[in-house]
């Protein structure tokens, strides 16, 4: 072979060897650097999560500031809300302010008039456009009920479906009863402890199973599992989920014709106490006790006051002969996100928090918008 071809061949071999070595070494170095980047994302997530859970934001009582509402643009909201944090001012660590948490809730079927979009919070946290996040708040305990005759079986489980024995269960049953041609709200309270299977059965004086649509039988169930507390509300008739913002209750109309009549004063559930609230007439010329169809799909009621520790507001409404339970949780399950979870690397952090003496799991996801 000619000597020139030999040299060309040597050059080609040298080039191939070097190219192969580089393409093998490069990913090895890159893996190490990527792992460091992932670790740094975790540190940032921890920092943001701590900031959200351990600081009250500014103003300290921004959850009660009704000037921050859906009529404002995002930039206008930032004039009132200067710093973001869900902690209750002056409270112990990991105690959240319900008035702040309900500002993140927009999934009750009714638009929350005081909802703050995630973009505003991203701006306040300084991560807008760079990182995405998701915040989920769910009750710590999972509760199921079964009604049979005059008995009610309550099942108490963890969110991982593990039965929780020796949980203290208190059930407050309410139903409407016609006494002397007048509808009266009846109630009965029972307590029990769950067995090894996480279940307990409570007997009531009335046949609850038969008190469905007509009497609107409903149950407010309070469970305490060694300090982990959850309130669960359920009804044998159709339940209407309402939203509560500050002292205003928004109730969505049911499908079909006919007005809804409020059957009772609202019950303010601040376990272990239950109070009767009062709806004040802030409507213009409309009857307080009839929910008329207006230009919107819901009607807003003003309550005279709400105990700050209220977990739920419950009331019974009537349509024709049927009764329905209206529930407004403070807060409900919260799902708050800048968008669907994305990114190759994402960090998930979980903590247990207390809202109005009830226990919730809070999950926080953080991911990079661009990898």
């Amino acid at each position, binding site marked *: 072979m*000619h*000597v*020139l071809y*030999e*040299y*060309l061949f*040597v*050059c080609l071999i*040298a*080039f191939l060897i*070097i190219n192969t070595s*580089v393409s093998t070494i490069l990913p090895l*170095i890159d893996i190490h*650097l990527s792992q*460091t*980047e992932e*670790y*740094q994302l975790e*540190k*940032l997530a*921890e*920092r*943001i999560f*701590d*900031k959200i859970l*351990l*600081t*009250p934001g*500014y103003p*300290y009582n921004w959850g009660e500031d009704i000037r921050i509402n859906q009529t404002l643009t995002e930039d206008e909201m930032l004039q009132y809300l*200067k*710093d*973001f944090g869900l*902690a209750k001012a002056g409270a*112990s*660590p990991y105690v959240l302010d319900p008035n702040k948490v309900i500002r993140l809730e927009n999934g009750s079927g009714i638009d929350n008039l005081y909802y703050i979009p995630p973009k505003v919070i991203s701006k*306040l*946290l*300084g*991560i807008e456009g760079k990182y995405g996040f998701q915040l989920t708040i769910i009750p710590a305990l999972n509760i199921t009920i079964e009604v049979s005759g005059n008995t009610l079986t309550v099942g108490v489980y963890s969110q991982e479906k593990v039965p929780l024995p020796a949980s203290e269960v208190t059930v407050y049953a309410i139903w409407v009863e016609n006494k002397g041609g007048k509808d009266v709200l009846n109630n009965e309270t029972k307590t029990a402890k769950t067995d090894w299977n996480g279940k307990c059965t409570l007997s009531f004086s009335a046949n609850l199973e038969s008190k469905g649509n007509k009497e609107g039988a409903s149950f407010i169930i309070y469970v305490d599992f060694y300090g982990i507390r959850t309130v669960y509300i359920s009804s044998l008739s159709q339940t209407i989920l309402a939203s509560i913002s500050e002292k205003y209750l928004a109730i969505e109309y049911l499908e079909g014709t006919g007005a809804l009549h409020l059957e009772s004063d609202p019950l303010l559930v601040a376990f272990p106490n239950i109070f009767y609230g009062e709806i004040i007439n802030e409507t213009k010329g409309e009857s307080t006790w009839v929910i008329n169809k207006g230009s919107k799909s819901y009607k807003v009621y003003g309550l005279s006051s709400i105990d700050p520790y209220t977990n739920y507001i419950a009331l019974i409404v009537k349509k024709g002969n049927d009764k329905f339970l209206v529930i407004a949780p403070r807060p409900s399950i919260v799902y708050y996100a800048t968008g669907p979870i994305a990114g190759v690397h994402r960090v998930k952090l979980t903590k247990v928090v207390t809202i109005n003496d009830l226990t919730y799991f809070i999950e926080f996801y953080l991911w990079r918008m661009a990898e």
Partner: protein
Amino acid sequence: MPSPIVSHLIGTTMLLVIMLVISYYFTNFGTIMGVRAVEKELNEIAEYIASNIIDMISLTNASLSDTLLLEIDFPYEINGYGYSINITKESNHYIVITRIEHISIVEGKAILPFSSQIIYSSLDPGINGIEGKNGLYSGTRKALIWCKKVGTEIYFGFGVRK
């Protein structure tokens, strides 16, 4: 075909050129990877400082005490280089910046996720036994972060124990 001497000359020159290109490529590659590695370490230090600042601010919020101090410990050097730790403001948010200024400027950054009522102060905090510093340098002994609640505002900064 050229004579064998010319062929050897062309071949040797080509080999030398390839060797030079490879050396240049590897030197650059090494430098870039080195800078990236240093940048990661600087980021890690910035993250550590930022996390401590957030912890301090959370504690100050929950604490009855108006003043909190936390001694911090960070590497003496990175790859033989000293570095600085500073806090700057970028679009309404504070950022912890760690920086090496040698052949080129290499920086690590970590954002502080708060926007108001929490203020960085480069001035002396007026705390007994503490000297306020506008930033820290690697190798600083008895370095600390201080946090002070004044009314509705929380001030924080760097310092050293006298």
